[in-house]
């Protein structure tokens, strides 16, 4: 389990902070609140106060307000990211979960811009989806498609390589994945694998890019309170105006 970065103060909210007494209230919230970081409710309270006293916002520019990375760090420090990367599965068997972890990293491996899918908890995210009865849709259908898909994959690997997916070599695994990862050029007999992998790829992408690390990877710097809106950055406006 990777270490979490040291929490930093939420700069955009800190610059909205008009009142030492409110800061005191935030710190009094309990042992779970790291010094310098505010809970969302405190942030909302501060926003409400700042609305009543707009002059206090002076000197708080949109640049400061858009410090997304600091925002992620603070949210992570709150322990809000769930489920934990190291958690044991609630749906998958140990063998299935080994396969899921491997597959997730074949879909989205680590590179110079971000960690791998398994490193940000994608296997646990998928496991959660397989047990979450609140999620819209048919839980049993979801479970059957996932379990059946993993079973199909193992059977396909055994037939050609004599081993389930997890027991194959890297080259053997890629040979099977190449058959099911490209729907337009796949053989009709591999259709169940294609269907499974399309869904698995979607789950992996959602789990990875919606994680704090995935948002950093994409350069997502929104979800911040900004004192004013002056449009996108000059650089972004120029980029979007390009003739391509």
């Amino acid at each position, binding site marked *: 389990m990777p270490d979490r970065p040291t929490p930093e103060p939420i700069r955009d909210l800190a610059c909205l902070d008009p009142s030492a007494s409110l800061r005191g209230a935030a710190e009094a919230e309990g042992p779970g609140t790291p010094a310098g970081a505010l809970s969302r409710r405190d*942030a909302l309270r501060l926003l409400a106060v700042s609305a009543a006293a707009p002059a206090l916002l002076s000197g708080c520019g949109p640049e400061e307000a858009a410090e997304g990375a600091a925002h992620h760090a603070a949210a992570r420090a709150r322990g809000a990211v*769930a489920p934990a990367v190291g958690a044991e599965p609630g749906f998958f068997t140990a063998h299935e979960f080994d396969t899921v972890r491997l597959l997730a990293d074949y879909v989205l491996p680590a590179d110079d811009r971000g960690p791998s899918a398994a490193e940000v908890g994608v296997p646990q995210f998928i496991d959660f989806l397989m047990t979450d009865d609140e999620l819209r849709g048919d839980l049993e259908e979801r479970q059957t498609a996932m379990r059946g898909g993993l079973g199909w994959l193992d059977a396909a690997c055994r037939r050609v390589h004599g081993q389930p997916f997890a027991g194959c070599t890297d080259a053997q695994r890629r040979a099977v994945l190449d058959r099911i990862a490209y729907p337009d050029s796949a053989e009709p007999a591999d259709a169940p694998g294609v269907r499974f992998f399309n869904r698995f790829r979607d789950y992996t992408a959602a789990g990875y890019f919606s994680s704090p690390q995935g948002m950093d990877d994409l350069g997502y710097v*929104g979800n911040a309170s900004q004192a004013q*809106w002056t*449009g996108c950055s000059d650089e972004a406006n120029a*980029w979007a*105006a390009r003739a391509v």
Partner: protein
Amino acid sequence: MQIIEPSETYDVCIVGSGAGGSMAAYVLTQAGANVVMLEAGGPWSVEDGDMLTWNYESPRRGAAIKTRHFGEFDACDGGWSLEGEPYASAEGTRWDWWRARMLGGRTNHWGRISLRFGPDDFRGQSLDGYGDDWPITYDDVAPYYDKVDELVGIFGSQDGFYNEPDGRFLPPPEPRCYEKRVMRGAESIGIPVLSSRLSILTQAKGDRAACHYCGQCNRGCSVGANFSAGRVLLRPAQATGNLTLVTHAMAREVLTDAEGRASGVSFVDTRTLEEQQVRADVVILAASACESARLLLNSTSERHPNGLANSSDVVGKYLMDTVGASASAFVPALASQPTHNCDGVGGMHIYIPWWLYDQHASLGFPRGYHLETWGGRGMPGYGFGGGIQGQNGSLPGDRPRGGGGYGASLKDDYRTLYAARVGFSGRGEMIAREDNVCEIDPASVDKYGIPTLRFDVTWSDAEVQQARHMQMAMREILESIGGEIDEMPTEETQYGISSPGSIIHEAGCVRMGDDPTTSALNGFCQAHDADNVFVVDAAPFVSQPHKNTTWTILALAWRAADYLVDQRKQRNV
């Protein structure tokens, strides 16, 4: 079952706490009326919302849940289906019915698109022969649009565009980078683009803060910077001390006396299933168009055997939704764009008004539409990158096997495609037709024992041809901004037209008119058959222009409430 009898008689009972009901409550409580409001859902205030929550704060990353169909952080308890509250569609037809069950109704999560109807929209029949004219004109409603603008707050620009009346606007926000590209593209092919008109505060108003541009209006705004009925209307109504709010109260029927006038409302406490009643001198229905029609149809009595306010037999008929179609494209020029905050307000900063208003003779369909645009760097959540196998096959690079894949190149494809898709949603006017109906399903009741609705609604060629035109126009604009457009939907799919009901603009099923034999209400939303019954949601609409319902619901509800106050002073009601 024991029925709990009421202990007092209120001046007014309002059914429903959305835009119309809350506006009526706001006006009537300030005028000194003793008002009771019934809401089928639970209590909710904007402070309960999930503004500024990261999707990763939930293990399901913002996905739709069974009790919130637009996502777990979207501020609308409800959706296309509610447990224990079925509805049906006639064979071969489909109606999608969104129902909110919460204080403030759908105003908590809506898109805040707040367009006025224009002068032509109240007299369509006179202009082209389709549908009917309203019994009122733009000039009757305009003073109320002005009052709603001032009270609620709306941004926009003064454009003087034909049949798109300007309002009392706050300054509009600067368009986003991709929206500027759309403006240049559309204008290069002769299609005008205006500032959008959304009920979001770009300047503080009273005790409500100015927008802080997090782009999440649909989650409910904790600082009150956008319009929601609870924050903007019910809070001041409650402050008068004249409003009694009853949540978890599912209305069964409007009670009437021997003269056929309303005497109160019976309802079910949804938690205990106890049957209760409230007595009131006046009953105002604002339960959403189809629920209000359902209530009237279920309120049968000796004096009203066909349902209350229904001697004309029009209740449930002339049901309308908005015509919808959409198209989007990958725009290579927007790929791999510099990191920046693109959130803005919780909705589009620009929109395309109906620009071919003088060319209907050659278009093949009678009424107009507008185009909404979307794109940008939204917060990634559940569903991010879904179906990429249908999108990355045509990206640059060596891709002999087509779309999909895995590994480092796939990871790069997600990055490339992020924020590089621009889309349009066409929103058009449907013609009101008598045979598009909701009616009581003869053999079905909900879990409260209340007879349920069956819908029978179809598009006519007017709507299908309009959807075709939307598709062509959207593609022209996408092409003008360098988008890689896909194949246009065919006639077999009715050009990708939305299913009726799915745009969530239901209207018209308790329509107003001067003639009591062809309408249920007069021009003040007052029932012809019972002068102490009013309907103030979108059910009274005679037509449903492409301009979204809420601003007109608010204006008509205010006008009806003013009229009621005046009539009470004259002791007419």
